[in-house]
């Protein structure tokens, strides 16, 4: 049972960090399937908590070969772009979102699509909460579609990535989700 987002936002940053539900490799290896029938409107997904440091930002810049100085050069960020610090990458946030949806739908569901905006400047020292909440569900073509509200909030409740997502879960007595994924013709 995940800690509710509203409850997390009433906690101190260090308490939030202790409730991190990011799975380790074994947790992902042994992940039990969530079926369409298991999900109800209003359900919250596990909360992934991050505490990015300058080193995390540098590692991401290097991994994707993004050399924009606002992400690793503090002097440039403060004095040239007048930012409050070096900034967490939008590209990292938008890569966490599909990872989060993938993990929730494993092993046989599908993280079909996500839409989001980038708001707020995130900086090292922020505690970030990747969250999701079920807004509706429907069956189509013997697949279970789950509509989600998703986002990444700071410990202060500032939403930095408001968005929505659609994922697909198998029905308990349904066929496997097609792979590569084939959406219904009218979606």
């Amino acid at each position, binding site marked *: 049972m995940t800690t509710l987002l509203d409850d997390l936002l009433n906690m101190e940053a260090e308490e939030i960090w202790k409730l991190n539900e990011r799975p380790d490799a074994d947790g992902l290896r042994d992940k039990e399937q969530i079926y369409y029938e298991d999900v109800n409107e209003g359900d919250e997904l596990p909360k992934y908590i991050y505490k990015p440091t300058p080193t995390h930002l540098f*590692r991401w810049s290097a991994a994707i070969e993004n050399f924009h100085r606002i992400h690793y050069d503090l002097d440039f960020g403060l004095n040239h772009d007048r930012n409050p610090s070096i900034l967490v990458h939008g590209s990292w946030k938008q890569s966490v979102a599909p990872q989060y949806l993938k993990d929730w739908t494993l092993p046989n569901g599908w993280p079909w699509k996500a839409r989001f905006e980038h708001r707020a400047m995130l900086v090292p020292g922020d505690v970030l909460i990747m969250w999701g909440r079920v807004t509706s569900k429907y069956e189509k073509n013997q697949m279970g579609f789950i509509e989600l509200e998703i986002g990444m909030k700071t410990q202060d409740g500032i939403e930095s990535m408001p968005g929505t997502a659609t994922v697909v879960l198998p029905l308990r007595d349904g066929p496997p989700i097609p792979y590569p994924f084939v959406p219904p013709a009218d979606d």
Partner: protein
Amino acid sequence: MTQQAPPTALTPEVQAMVGVSGDVVESWGVVDAEYMRRFTQALMDPDPRYWDDEFAKSTRYGEIITPPIMVSYLASRIRPDQGDPITAAFEENPESDGIGSVERPGELPPVPTNLVRVLNAGNEIELYAYPSIGDTIFFQNRYSDIRERLGRDGTPFLIITRETRFWNQNDVTLCITRASTIRR
């Protein structure tokens, strides 16, 4: 007294850009395990489907897979035949932001508007299949949508959506990304 409508930003020339596509680009190199190792560690995704060959064979995918939108970054790697854009950027401007003016293959022609201020308006991701190690990645950009909106003061601005489709050597669509920008 009749009030004059503000001039539209959605001119016929701007409208004509919807559907305009860039060249099909074959990305440099292939999807490789070392790029993925660095990517997944930086993403902090320890999924064994990315590195445990034996386990990956037991999953529905039957092989190692790679993260959903990793190819969108891999495809923008600077090719070795493009020279050294970082050194060039700082020679051109010692205060360079580190990006410079790297020429990206497959870029779209600019939208003919005098609205020059660019703001991020949002992103969309659609996933269809996980790339495999060894895949060659192709992509193509296109303007999928351009809309006009009015600001609070009645001044028109544009929301321009650029869509990029990524596929592999077997013509399997892997993912589609859309990035919308506001032009004021």
